[in-house]
Each structure stands twice: as structure tokens, then as C-alpha cells.
């Protein structure tokens, strides 16, 4: 436990000394924030509130880049080997990545909320407890996904390419960039298989509708992301390699693909019931008819 704590502190310290971090984890998220709030939402508080979900989701998801890639670099440079001759375990190493990631993401999210409140006058930030839980589970699950990528790639470059390939569909097909309700039907159907979609809609339910953590929408997002986080973390611990030259077992890539199963199942169910999509639609429509800016009664369970 103490090893995990000191490693977490080291990871945070090292990340703060890295200029790339400043760009990807601070400048870029705020760039998005002002683009959405200032340009897309034209500074209208209600619309800014609507876009807070996607913006925070982007910040939360974007965090998966740095720390997992750093772990690959640690392996490549033989840094992990040095830790391997100490009593440090693979889980210490991985958990410290996930938690450091969370600690580093939280201030950015907090600032985004503060800007929304004081710069864009969003007086109602919804259910912040729901939002906090989603942000926590969200950063942990996407960081764990980054760790799985790190465990099935050999070089930093390879890791970056795979991360890109995952990142693009995640942000474009999930409602994190363009509102889900405005996307073509086919894209919506695909989007329902992505974890990012549930993070976005979950955060929107929390902030825009002020849903409590035990409401179906928030609970569904929390539950599915938590299951996914546990699965990806467990897998990354199983596949963890200390040595640069140790080979990736052949089954590893198969197992990595298996982490998609929870959202595959959820996607099939959602495609059948159309529940989340109807919610997203209702939320989007309420923007142009502010009088209806209350959640559909039937979904508020």
C-alpha cells in the first residue's frame, strides 16, 4: 500500500515536470472548453450547461494518453526493470498510474466547472455528486484502457498510433464533440457500443438534468464504466511486462479485445430499447424549448 502511495506521488511529480502534460492536460481541455462554451453555446448559460457534459467527458477521456504511454517508455528504457528488483508489484505500478491520472485530471475539471459558474454564469451545475462519481470512475476506466493498450504494444510509437485509433471514434461517435442527437442514425447505433457515449450522457444527466447517482441514467453509466474499469485493470495487471524484450503473449491481443464485451452487450440492449438515445434526443430538443427544460417524466426513476 505504501509502495503504491509513493509511486503515485512520483508519477504526479514527474508528470508535472513534463511540458507535454501541460499542453495535453491543461491547454487542450481549456481550448475545448472555451470553444464549446464561447462559440458553440454562444455563452448562453443553459446551452453551456448542456455542453459541460461533453467538455468534461473529453477532459476525462483525454487523460488516458499520458500516463500509460509513460509506462511504455519506462519499459522501453529499462526503468521498469529497476523497479522489478524491489518489492514493488505490477499492481502497485498500474494502480499508481490510474490514481495519479485521476489526481492530475481533477483540478482541470474543477476549473472547468468554476469557469462555467463564474465566467459563463451557469448558476445550476446540476447534481455535482453524480458528476464527481462519473468523473472518478471515468478517469479510472479510461486510464485502465490506456494501460491495456500499453500492455499490448511494444514501443511508444505503436502506443501512440493505437491510442489515436481508439481516441478518434471515441470522441466523434459518442457525442463528446457533436451532440449525439444531431448525428446520423447509423453513427448513433455505433455510438451505443462505445464507453465514451455513456460517460457523455451520464455527465449530461448529472449536470443538465441534475440526476442523482441512483437515477437509472447515472447508475447505468457508473455501473457499466466500473465493470469495464475492473476488467481492463485486471487484464492490464495480467499482461504487465517489466522487461523491454519480453514478448506479448499471443492471447494478449485477444484478451484485450475481450474488454469490449461489456459495452458490446450494453450496446445491443440499448440499440433494442433506444433508451439512452431517446434521452439524448429529449435533452437536445429541450435546448430550443427552454420551457421544457425538465427531464422526461418517465425516465426519472
Amino acid at each position: 500500500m505504501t509502495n503504491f502511495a509513493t509511486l503515485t506521488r512520483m508519477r504526479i511529480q514527474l508528470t508535472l515536470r513534463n511540458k507535454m502534460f501541460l499542453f495535453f492536460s491543461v491547454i487542450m481541455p481549456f481550448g475545448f472548453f472555451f470553444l464549446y462554451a464561447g462559440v458553440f453555446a454562444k455563452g448562453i448559460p443553459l446551452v453551456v450547461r448542456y455542453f459541460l457534459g461533453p467538455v468534461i467527458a473529453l477532459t476525462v477521456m483525454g487523460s488516458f494518453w499520458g500516463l500509460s504511454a509513460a509506462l511504455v517508455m519506462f519499459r522501453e528504457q529499462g526503468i521498469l526493470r529497476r523497479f522489478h528488483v524491489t518489492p514493488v508489484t505490477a499492481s502497485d505500478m498500474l494502480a499508481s498510474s490510474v490514481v495519479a491520472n485521476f489526481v492530475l485530471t481533477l483540478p482541470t475539471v474543477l476549473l472547468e466547472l468554476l469557469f462555467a459558474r463564474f465566467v459563463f454564469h451557469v448558476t445550476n451545475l446540476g447534481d455535482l455528486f453524480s458528476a464527481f462519481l462519473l468523473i472518478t470512475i471515468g478517469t479510472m476506466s479510461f486510464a485502465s484502457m490506456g494501460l491495456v493498450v500499453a500492455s499490448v504494444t511494444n514501443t511508444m510509437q505503436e502506443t501512440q498510433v493505437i491510442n489515436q485509433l481508439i481516441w478518434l471514434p471515441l470522441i466523434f461517435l459518442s457525442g463528446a464533440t457533436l451532440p449525439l442527437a444531431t448525428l446520423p442514425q447509423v453513427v448513433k447505433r455505433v455510438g451505443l457500443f462505445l464507453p465514451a457515449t455513456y460517460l457523455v450522457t451520464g455527465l449530461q444527466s448529472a449536470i443538465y438534468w441534475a440526476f442523482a447517482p441512483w437515477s437509472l441514467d447515472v447508475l447505468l453509466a457508473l455501473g457499466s464504466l466500473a465493470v469495464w474499469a475492473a476488467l481492463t485493470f485486471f487484464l492490464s495487471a495480467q499482461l504487465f511486462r517489466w522487461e523491454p524484450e519480453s514478448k506479448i503473449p499471443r492471447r494478449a491481443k485477444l484478451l484485450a479485445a475481450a474488454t469490449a464485451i461489456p459495452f458490446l452487450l450494453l450496446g445491443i440492449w440499448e440499440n433494442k430499447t433506444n433508451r439512452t438515445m431517446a434521452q439524448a434526443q429529449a435533452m437536445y430538443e429541450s435546448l430550443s424549448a427552454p420551457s421544457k427544460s425538465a427531464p422526461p417524466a418517465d425516465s426519472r426513476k
Partner: protein
Amino acid sequence: MANSVIQVENLVKRYGELEAVRGVSFNVEEGEVFGLLGPNGAGKTSTVEILEGLRTLDSGRVSVCGLDPQRNARELKNEIGAALQSTSLPDKLRVMEALRLFASFYKRRRDPEELLKRFGLEEKRSTFYNQLSGGQKQRLALAMALVNDPKVVFFDEPTAGLDPQVRREIYDIIEELRREKKTIVMTTHYIEEAERLCDRVAIVDHGKVIALGTPRDLKAHSGGTTRIEVRLSKPETNGTLKDLDGVIDARQVGDTYVLHSQRPPQAIVSLVKHLEAQGNDLISLEIATPSLEDVFIEMTGRRLRD
């Protein structure tokens, strides 16, 4: 011996087709500096990394501090310290942070301040790892191997790639540890390093131990001869020099005569007497005693550093 700190019996390690370690056996006693000497690719690092619990063995039996490095990996890692080959630290980690971080992993610790002082890194305490020189990095690596006051320390090629002056600094550090009776296992492909630092040496080649003993015994039991190189004021014939008492062979190389002897004192006395009788003078004399290199050449027919 039952109370050896390290016991290795018939150790075998394969990487696919390649058999890197082919039945290595040796024991290391408490308080000794034990060296594995051999050329690159001889299986030294594989052997040491199996003892450290970093690699699995294919067959044989090893025990370190009474523990099995595979089954008791966690306990073992508390008892050992290591300076690995081909390793690094994060670029932006400061020297003192590295020592404190690694010390925090252990229950038994040495004071990082004291290590810093001892390894001459006090002035570098706040320097980032990537701003250290090669010698400073290596000193830090050795200091880090001691943060848990280990029972056994492993130094894998502690001076590889360092320039001669820095190498001597490292020797001083290891000699100091030797005086403190630390149990040290080190690998090296430098003859002088093994001769100077190790109480006992196992010469390793192609995954096998080909000779084992104190450097002195290894040299004494080898057929290696002492070379006596002399320059004389007047020419001599090889024949007469070769017939001197204690001399086995004599050859002329340029203006120098190279005599080989297994009894150097006799050879020198008879040489001087002979020269006096001839009215010849000795301009210079150099003596090269057999080294572990000669032992290696004798066993393998190859030089150690090729």
C-alpha cells in the same frame, strides 16, 4: 556448504533455441566478493538475473539467502540490492528523490543522506537524472542498490562503458564495501576488475563455468608464465638466454628480448649473472605476471575481449 548465502546447482537457462546458461554451479559465502568473469554473451547476466528473481530458470536449483527467487520473490527482494545492466531512471527524477523513493519500498532502510555523502553525490542531490554524467549515474545506481542495507548485493558490469578514471572511482567504492564484509556478486569482462576486487572468481564461457577459485590460485594453477622483457646495451643470442636457469623460452622482438619463466626470481638472478660475465648492461627490465586473461586463453584458446 550448508550456510552459503547463494547456492547455484546445474543452472540452465534457454532463450528459444539458444542455451545461454548450460549447467552452472557455484556457491557464494557470506562476506565475500564473488565475480563472474567472462566475455559478453557468456551467460553472466542471465545467471545473475535469475538470482535476483528477474528471470525464470529452465532447470537446476538456486537459493539466495535461503530463499527460492521464484517462489519467494517478494521476501527475496527485501534482502537483496542490485545495480542492473541496461537500466535507467526517469529523466526528471532528482538524485535525492530517487534514493528516497527506492528506500521507501523497504522496511529496512539506510539513511539516504548518508548514502549520498558516501557516494560523492551531495552536490548533485537536486540534479535531474538525465543531467548526470555516466559516472554519476553509475554511482547513483550503486547507492540505490544499498538503500535497503541488503544481505547480498549484485553489481552487473558495474564499470562497463565508463572511462578509466571513473572506473577507478567505482573500484574504490566496491573495495570499501568489501572491507565492510558485504556479500557481493559482480559480473565483469574486465580482467583487472576481477583480479583487484574479487575474493573468488568463476570464469564463465559459453554458459559454463570453466574455472573457479581465488584469482591467485587460478593464476598459480594455470600454465601461464611470467614475461620478463629486457633491453640490453649489447646484442645477445636467443639461444644463450633460453639456456639460463629458470628461463623456458626467449625471443627477440625489435630491440627487446622477451623471456618466459615459471620461476621469475631464478630467471632474473641468472640473467644478471650472465650479463655481468659478458660485460653487457641492462638498459630496462619489465615483468608481466600471468593474469586471468592468460588463464582464459589457456582454457578457451581465445582472448577475453574480442
